């Protein structure tokens, strides 16, 4: 297939070989790890910062505003300036707060979002770890972030934060289930939990096209549940600025607050990449069965562009949600999950199983 011309596996492999040929094994290992670590760190920071900027721009355009436009050309370095400002701010600790947990919480949210990044296939042959249970892994890791939110709210010794924490507790017990079950649909279709395999299985067409109605339903459910799991509006109950001032991070200041912020955006990125990978074919170019010429033309666009393009669209949809809908109430949050998303999911899975059994999907 044409898209294989952009396979990055030889490149990474050659770097690997180069290091091991020129350095002792231990040092080569350390050097390789350092390179990967630094690359991901920079990637993480840049994506996080620019997502913040993108959100501000998107919401501004939706609200007939311009958004950041002072720092740099069209505000392109606005968030970087913000980051430095936050770095230079004093960290305030609250009297009687549970200091250990208070300091631990930002670590947990960042670790959770950073670990998730490890399993994402960015392009052909470009992923840190190709788990054979990739979907499962991302599900597990991304649900840890809420624990950080819970801890942050609880340890702050602030009543608003506590209520926010309790709300995030409710979030824990709900949306993870829907995320898992909606991803299951594609797992049934493709017969694998490995993200690279799932992407490869979409070489002829994406699952959202091949899997037609159940896949579309699963996608909608996934986006809804994913938005909820990342604590974003309209599910930002733990934060709920009009009710709880700032919810769980009321007492966080400076860079610690920035990490919650960053983690929220990275979680969004994570959810969007999973959605793009699983439903929209990840880095796989748009292929229509039977149109060879079209497919070849599409193959000329590098996979990494496809991946980021799709992710950006899903992120845009999630931002669109946030800037359109009013916030749900806590009981409605649970009602939505248990009375709507879960039954829909269960029925959807049976339907998919039937479709797979009968072969009614586009093979």
């Amino acid at each position, binding site marked *: 297939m044409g898209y294989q011309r952009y396979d990055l596996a030889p490149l990474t492999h050659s770097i690997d070989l180069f290091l091991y040929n020129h350095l002792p094994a231990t040092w080569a290992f350390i050097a390789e790890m350092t390179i990967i670590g630094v690359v991901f760190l920079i990637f993480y920071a840049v994506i996080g910062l620019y997502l913040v900027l993108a959100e501000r721009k998107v919401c501004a355009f939706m609200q*007939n505003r311009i958004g950041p436009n002072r720092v740099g050309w069209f505000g392109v370095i606005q968030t970087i300036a913000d980051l430095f400002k936050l770095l230079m701010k004093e960290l305030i600790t609250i009297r009687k707060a549970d200091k250990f947990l208070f300091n631990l919480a930002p670590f947990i949210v960042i670790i959770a979002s950073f670990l998730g990044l490890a399993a994402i296939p960015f392009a052909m042959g470009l992923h840190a770890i190709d788990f054979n249970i990739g979907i499962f892994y991302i599900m597990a890791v991304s649900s840890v972030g809420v624990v950080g939110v819970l801890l942050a709210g609880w340890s702050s010794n602030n009543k608003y934060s506590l209520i926010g924490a309790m709300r995030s507790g409710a979030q824990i017990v709900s949306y993870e289930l829907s995320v898992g079950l909606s991803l299951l649909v594609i797992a049934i279709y493709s017969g694998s939990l490995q993200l690279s395999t799932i992407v490869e299985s979409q070489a002829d067409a994406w699952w959202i096209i091949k899997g037609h109605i159940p896949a579309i339903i699963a996608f909608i459910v996934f986006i809804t549940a994913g938005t909820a799991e990342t604590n974003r509006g309209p599910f930002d109950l733990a934060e709920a600025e009009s009710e709880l001032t700032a919810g769980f991070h009321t007492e966080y200041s400076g860079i610690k607050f920035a990490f919650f912020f960053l983690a929220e955006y990275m979680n969004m990125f994570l959810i969007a990449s999973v959605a793009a990978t699983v439903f929209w074919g990840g880095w796989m170019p748009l292929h229509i069965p039977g149109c060879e010429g079209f497919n070849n033309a599409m193959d000329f666009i590098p996979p990494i562009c496809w991946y980021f393009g799709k992710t950006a669209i899903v992120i845009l949809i999630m931002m669109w949600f946030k800037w359109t809908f009013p916030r749900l109430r806590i009981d409605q949050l649970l009602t939505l999950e248990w009375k709507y998303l879960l039954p829909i999911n269960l029925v959807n899975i049976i339907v998919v199983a039937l479709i797979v059994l009968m072969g009614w999907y586009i093979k």
Partner: protein
Amino acid sequence: MSEEKKVIVELNENPEYIINMGPQHPSTHGVLRFEVSLQGEMVKHLIPHCGYVHRGIEKMCESLTYPQVIHLTDRLDYLSAHMNNEAVSLCVENALEIEVPERVKYIRSILSELNRIASHQLWWSAFGMDLGGLTCFFYGLRDREKILDIFEESFGSRLLHSFIVPGGLMHDIHPNFKKGITDFIKYFRKKLPEYNRFLTGNVIFQARTKGLGILSKEDAINYGITGPSGRASGFSCDIRKVEPYSAYPYVDFKEILYNEGDTFYRYVARMDEMVESMNILEQLIDKMPDGNEYTSKMKPVIKLPEGEYYQRVETARGELGVYIVSDGNKTPYRLKLRTPNFSNLFIMNKLASGYKIADLVAISGSLDLVIPDIDR
């Protein structure tokens, strides 16, 4: 006693979980404080505390002449400044038994209705924001700006106009005034369906507002809840109908009445009022006499004859009463302002207890409280 034991003892002594919402809280739209005792997320009991912006306007009025009082009434309910000005002016005119020119009556009513729309637009924005839909805020303010531009062109100020004075108006309206209003109505009639598409019809919004904070008609009367909040409960309290003033007798409009009395219908009542206000405006613009008289002959120093005068006016939030006791001097002996929000605020405990915090925000938003109007 160990630390743990202390906590337990404290809990037993003070079993209520009390949380302060306000004075510095995004949902109170000003410096109002609710002391909320909670059980989980449920509001058990709520005590409103006010007075953070108490400026003693009633006391200050006692040392100011009647034209000077006008500029203080602006600062009561700053979102319906024209109506407040009109209330005092009407009261003074009634006392002096002055008849203002027809044209002035029309202009006053036009200003009131414009002001009402502007106020409801801001309320809509803030209500959407209370419920977490931040974009509402910008849409509402964007459209409100058009009205404020009309105001600025004619009166030179956007919020606090002091334009309606005893005897008439401060000065004549701008030549573009009529055109500006017709343009605005044309513009806003297109935007209002957008508001409905965006928020009113939204399933989340309806679930957040329907069936909570139900105010019965009896309670509305008993607590003196006026304005759209009262009318959503079926309390026919529109002063424009009950005691028509200015140009309201000349126009044909309907009082928005609903019987449900919940948060959603308080919302709908205001949305309908905006439409109705535009209808009134169109009629007033058509019927408004030409000419350029904007004031009736007034003495340079206004002295009210000894006695008591009361004037009721319908502001954007309800009934504003001005009670002037005069001893024949050029300053009022006592000037009492019965402000709509003052009465409206104190229903909060009854409405919000038994609901969740999120509902408390929605209910207080639906009452459309303006804090300086409460504190005076």
